[in-house]
């Protein structure tokens, strides 16, 4: 992510020669500097290594064993867990669900979020309040949102009745109980929960689009829509591309909402890679197998991230387009 600009050249060269660092030859000073760096960096590094990196590496290691997490780790089976996982139709379905959610999230939330952001970027009364309200679902805990929707979607619940009261009673469904419907129900809830994030991000990006361009375009006789399509949206490109990236990663990691609302059911119809991982690892104590699933999950996310970075986001991080701070 282009959050940091690479070291500004002028500064990097100026530094070592600067007045305060002229005494570089003195070893006492050098040791002191090293000690300071160590003091500042080591606590964070230790925490990061212990709870992030080591477990990640361990997951890769455990994935090579048939292991329940309790007994001795001695049943080495190589890539057996991997072929088992990739051969399990339930897991393959879960990967498919994740990829479908990735695609649908982008197809639904991008136009919706962009449209709303463009509208809200205009001078309307109560814009600030509206922005705050739109962000509310995103701020709610997944569990809280999931439980509320679970209750709303129960048979003869408020969703069914509300639809009936506007004459759509015929469309009643087992929203979360029908394997053919459940994934699309989840998509609606996910859109509700996460589109606010897209809107806020786009609105933030829109602040970087100079007003003068709009005014110039308006003077040239461009319609509002032409201006948005030809000027605003292209200028919003970097923000949109980052949102797509974050959305993809989030869709692949989906767990809380699904676990609360369906538990991956019915009949695994709404399972995701992470719900599969948790049910295998923690409900069946298949730690080796679960680790293999975790590694596959990581590989899929990583591949997607790298591919996207290379194909789409590269131009945003190229030095020429980087903002100089």
């Amino acid at each position: 992510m282009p959050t940091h600009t690479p070291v500004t050249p002028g500064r990097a060269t100026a530094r070592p020669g600067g007045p305060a660092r002229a005494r570089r030859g003195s070893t006492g000073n050098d040791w002191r500097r090293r000690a300071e760096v160590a003091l500042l960096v080591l606590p964070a590094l230790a925490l990061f290594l212990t709870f992030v990196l080591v477990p990640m590496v361990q997951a890769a290691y455990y994935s090579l064993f048939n292991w329940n997490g309790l007994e001795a780790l001695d049943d080495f089976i190589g890539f057996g867990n991997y072929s088992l996982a990739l051969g399990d139709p339930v897991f393959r379905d879960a990967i498919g669900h994740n990829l479908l959610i990735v695609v649908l999230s982008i197809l639904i939330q991008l136009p919706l979020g962009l449209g709303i952001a463009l509208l809200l970027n205009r001078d309307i009364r109560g814009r600030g309040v509206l922005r705050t309200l739109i962000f509310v679902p995103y701020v709610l805990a997944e569990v809280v949102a999931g439980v509320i929707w679970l209750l709303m979607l129960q048979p003869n619940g408020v969703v069914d009745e509300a639809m009936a009261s506007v004459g759509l009673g015929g469309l009643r469904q087992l929203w979360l109980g029908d394997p053919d419907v459940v994934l699309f129900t989840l998509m609606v809830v996910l859109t509700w929960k996460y589109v606010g994030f897209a809107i806020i991000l786009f609105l933030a990006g829109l602040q970087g689009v100079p007003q003068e361009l709009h005014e110039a375009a308006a003077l040239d006789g461009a319609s509002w829509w032409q201006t948005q399509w030809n000027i605003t949206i292209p200028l919003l490109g970097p923000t949109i591309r980052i949102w797509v990236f974050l959305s993809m990663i989030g869709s692949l990691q989906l767990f809380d909402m699904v676990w609360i609302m369906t538990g991956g059911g019915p009949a695994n119809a709404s399972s995701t890679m992470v719900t599969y991982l948790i049910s295998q690892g923690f409900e069946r104590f298949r730690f080796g197998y679960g680790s293999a699933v975790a590694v596959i999950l990581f590989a899929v996310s990583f591949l997607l991230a790298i591919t996207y970075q290379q194909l789409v986001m590269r131009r945003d991080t190229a030095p020429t387009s980087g903002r100089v701070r």
Partner: protein
Amino acid sequence: MSATDQRPDTRASDGHRSGGGPAGTLDRAPRRRLGVSTVAVYLVAAVVTVATLAPVVYAVLGAFRSTGQITADPVGLPDPWISDNYVAVLTSDTFWRQALNSTVVATLTTVIAVGLGVMAAYALSRYQFRGREALYTFFTLGLLFPLTVAILPLFLLLRQMQLTDTTLGVALPQAAFALPMTVVILRPFLRALPDELEDAALVDGCGRLGFFWRIALPLSGPGLITVGVLAFVQSWNAYLLPLLVLGSPDAYTLPLGVATFSTQYTQDTAAVLAFTSLAMVPALVFFLLAQRRIVGGLTGAVKG
């Protein structure tokens, strides 16, 4: 200072202009031209607001009804209004204990993540040492490591360290996974402090740790608040890690409490709605207070 810091000002001036400031003339022409479509804009805004808030309103109002009322008429308003459900939750120890647990866990997570993160970010931005960029890249790679991938070994590790069922057992891993974002957001902040300032402090005999403590920290306040809010909200809402680490109900955080309560009282919709509604109050209040920071933080994370 950084762009993150300036953004609220930009917004403020935007608002000012729409209020008819000196630049008002520039806005007036397009606005008049779009007179008809302005109605459409308000319409869309109204639809969006309703769609956004309906579930929340349903939960809050539903909890003022009885389960009987809800079953008989799912869409109706409370009639009569019943406060029993809310009273029952507010007078139960469970809710308050879980709220307290959540507060402690989230605070601890935030303090650890921000504290260690800003120290590392300071070293990574204002010291020259071998392997600096490599170390920074190493931290940023953490952005690609999701907690879910490490969850099984993490669970075993925490059990081995006897940290299951403890606040630290949740806070330490959460802080560790929040570190990359913290470092990535804070480094540009600290880097943006002028060299002259540091040199002046050094000449005055301040020392670089002194400069960090007395000058860099206070000056990066807005950045610290941003990363702090992000870490806090994330920890407050977290479900998976607490679910696995916290086995005893006494240690439950609010999300765990909501999940448990809703399975325990499946039949009592109104009671579940009351518990859930009250559980979202702290997050909403916190969000309203810190709203600008959350948005600013996201902006800062996206556009350097």
